[in-house]
């Protein structure tokens, strides 16, 4: 009964956590009400919903969930502000920019490579090896995926060759980080330079000025025609537009997500990885091979990041260009940190970043707003900076991250 007594003060405001989460939801809803298809043209309705969000936030803060509460308050304020802006914009502009099905479909497309790389990064970092070389490993996957698909005529072989190349680069990183006890950030930087040089060199050497051939074998899309027949018709066609013809790799990323979660948090192997990342000496003492686990984790991270890269080259754009990952490995790293080194957290962050990538080009549809598209691209990084700064719940890395382990 003592636990009930201790909890008593907190339960004075019952359920502050769900209320806080509901507050964030209401804040988003307040903004959404002023956008197509609902199109509230007066501020009144969003303002009421936003005020409710702020109230929920205040309730949560009073109940002791300070960060969540303040997030809900912020969501309410931003929701009302966004709604005010939206009601001042012309309806035709809003309709040109906001087509939910297009935006959500594109969000999934942009989030997928980030998801693969972020999940890969999770394995490496959970085992205690910082991997800022994700960008380079993705780039290797993108080039060798395309090259392998071109040479073998099969996208499956392309994907496998791409993964192997990423794993090989990761092995270099692992060797320097684990055996040679080099600085892992320096090693990761080196790996990025190397990948840029190797892929650029081979691309120019093999494909020259012509670029990769147009008939590269591509990873197929999955067509789900039956989605369109789901009643009511508007919902069916909406689902069809969002999910009806996504790439196979998009669906595989969902599978990977679940598998990664189970492996990391529900199996002995995951426990080994996490213990090596939190307290290698203790793990060593109970007979876990610290080096072995770290090598396996880093190589896995390389293979997964390369899978994301291969999706870019032979799943998404069907060609390779020099430095085509263009910083996506770093965004994946940001997603990993934003998601607190957890698979679903990282996926949620990847979706958020994917959304901003999907939304930015939509702004091009209205001339007056087109310049803000590029500004919008900076949003994921600003959010990550805020997240790292500890405003939205502190991201705490694995305890032994970045520290080489020396056997005794």
């Amino acid at each position, binding site marked *: 009964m003592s636990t009930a007594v201790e909890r008593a003060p907190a339960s004075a405001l019952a359920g502050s956590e769900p209320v806080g989460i509901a507050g964030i939801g209401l804040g988003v809803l307040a903004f959404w009400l002023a956008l197509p298809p609902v199109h509230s043209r007066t501020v009144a309705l969003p303002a009421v919903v936003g005020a409710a969000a702020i109230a929920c936030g205040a309730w949560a803060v009073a109940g002791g969930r300070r960060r969540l509460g303040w997030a809900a308050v912020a969501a309410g304020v931003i929701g009302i502000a966004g709604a005010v802006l939206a009601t001042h914009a012309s309806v035709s502009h809003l309709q040109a920019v906001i087509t939910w099905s297009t935006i959500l479909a594109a969000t999934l497309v942009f989030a997928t490579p980030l998801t693969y790389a972020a999940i890969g990064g999770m394995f490496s970092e959970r085992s205690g090896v910082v991997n800022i070389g994700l960008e380079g490993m993705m780039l290797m996957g993108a080039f060798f995926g395309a090259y392998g698909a071109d040479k073998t005529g099969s996208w499956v072989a392309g994907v496998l060759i791409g993964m192997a190349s990423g794993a090989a680069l990761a092995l270099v990183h692992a060797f*320097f980080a684990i055996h*040679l006890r080099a600085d892992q950030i320096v090693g990761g*930087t080196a790996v990025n330079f190397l990948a*840029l040089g190797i892929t*650029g*060199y081979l691309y*120019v050497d093999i494909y020259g000025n012509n670029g990769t051939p147009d008939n590269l074998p591509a990873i197929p899309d999955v067509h789900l025609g039956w989605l369109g027949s789901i009643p009511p018709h508007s919902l069916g066609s909406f689902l069809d537009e969002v999910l009806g013809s996504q790439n196979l790799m998009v669906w595989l990323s969902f599978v990977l997500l679940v598998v990664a979660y189970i492996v990391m948090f529900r199996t002995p192997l995951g426990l080994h990885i996490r213990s090596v990342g939190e307290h290698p000496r203790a793990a060593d003492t109970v007979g876990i091979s610290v080096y072995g686990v770290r090598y396996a984790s880093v190589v896995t991270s390389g293979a997964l990041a390369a899978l994301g890269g291969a999706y870019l080259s032979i799943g998404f754009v069907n060609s390779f260009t020099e430095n085509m990952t263009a910083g996506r490995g770093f*965004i994946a790293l940001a997603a990993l940190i934003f998601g607190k080194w957890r698979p679903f957290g990282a996926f949620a962050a990847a979706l958020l970043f994917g959304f901003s990538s999907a939304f930015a080009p939509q702004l091009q549809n209205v001339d007056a707003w087109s310049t803000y598209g590029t500004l919008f691209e900076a949003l994921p*990084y600003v959010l990550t900076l805020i997240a*790292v700064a500890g405003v939205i719940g502190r991201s705490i890395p694995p305890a032994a991250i970045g520290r080489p382990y020396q056997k005794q």
Partner: protein
Amino acid sequence: MTDDELDPDLEDVVAEERVEELDSEPEARSGADYAPSVAERLAFYQRAGGIVTPILTALLAFFVGGLVVLATTGKNPLATYRAIFDGTGLNWLFPWVSGTERSLAALNLQQTLLIATPLILTGLAVAFAFRCGMFNIGGNGQYIVGAITAVWIGSSLNGLPGWLHILVAVVAAAVAGGMWAGIAGFLKASIGAHEVITTIMLNWIAVWVGSYLVGFGGPLQDKAQISAPVTKSVAPDAHLPVFWGSAVLQGLHVGFFIAIGALAVYWIMINRTTLGYEVRAVGFNPEAARYGGISVARNYFLAMAISGAFAGLAGSMDILGWQFHLDLTTVQISSIGFTGIAVALLGRNTAVGTFLAGILFAALLNGTSTRNLDPSVFKPELAGNLTRIIQGLVVLFVGADLLILYLWQWRRKLRLGRPRAVTGQ
């Protein structure tokens, strides 16, 4: 803790002497049953790492790069490197080069030093933070912020006299770069946010905000040419004066001396000021520094801000020295800040080392440019990527002193092993 213990510069000098001293040992003492203790050897290898590692690193990287050339194109790597070397203009330093060859070499050397100027400065940006125990990956963002500030001030404020205009633009760019990096320093100092993550984020924020400012319809885009994403040009009186070569042919501007001046400032600041002492103490061991009464947070912030100022300065040198305007592509693909990492690492964060490494990488970049490299010897597009591979290898090997020390140890074992085998008989 004395100043000397903290001073790797001094160790380098000591190491150099020790290397020469020890090199003669196997011959001199081969007859005696001399065997240095394990600790003695280890101490020596650690010190030898100071001067030997960078040289071995660079040689190893070029060697592997040569293997890549040989394996992929079947061409003689030495001939390729020779062609790259000729494009760098460094042959101007040889007294026997004369006539048209010499004037061509002079032109090439001007370009090499032109590229070296920002590389030295971004190298210092990385090196200064390193001395405080931080890894500033954000040199690129700080460079962009500096360049944007310089182009903005250089193309406005037209009433000012030339020298004042330059001064205001350069100082503003350094301050802007310092403030940009200062964000990361502040976050590290106040709540312990890791500077690698924050500077990576700040890099991309700088790229995208810069793209917005410079790009179509952006506030800094030149309204006179609405179809091009490029800023207005810097006023002619705000151009940095050219002191070697022709101003029309993009000769070498005085920014090169500013970079050398920055090296001197860096050396003095690190080695001869209280600030430098504190920065090094924090980098050496933050806990011990805190115990000694040094404010760790203050030094994190200051070191980061000063680092950013160097990178911002680099941006202003390029804008006021030879680019004179900023376009969208430059903002998005510039990688000078990243090359600065390789410069600082190879230069071991010392002033002289950064200078030499800056020249080396600038020479590589210039020697492999399409303008300078003879396509019949080696495709310049390939060579540009070869430069990146070499750059990556350099960073990789520098990061792993142990590898170089293993190799070094191995070499010495071979040499030391022989006399011992004889005495064992």
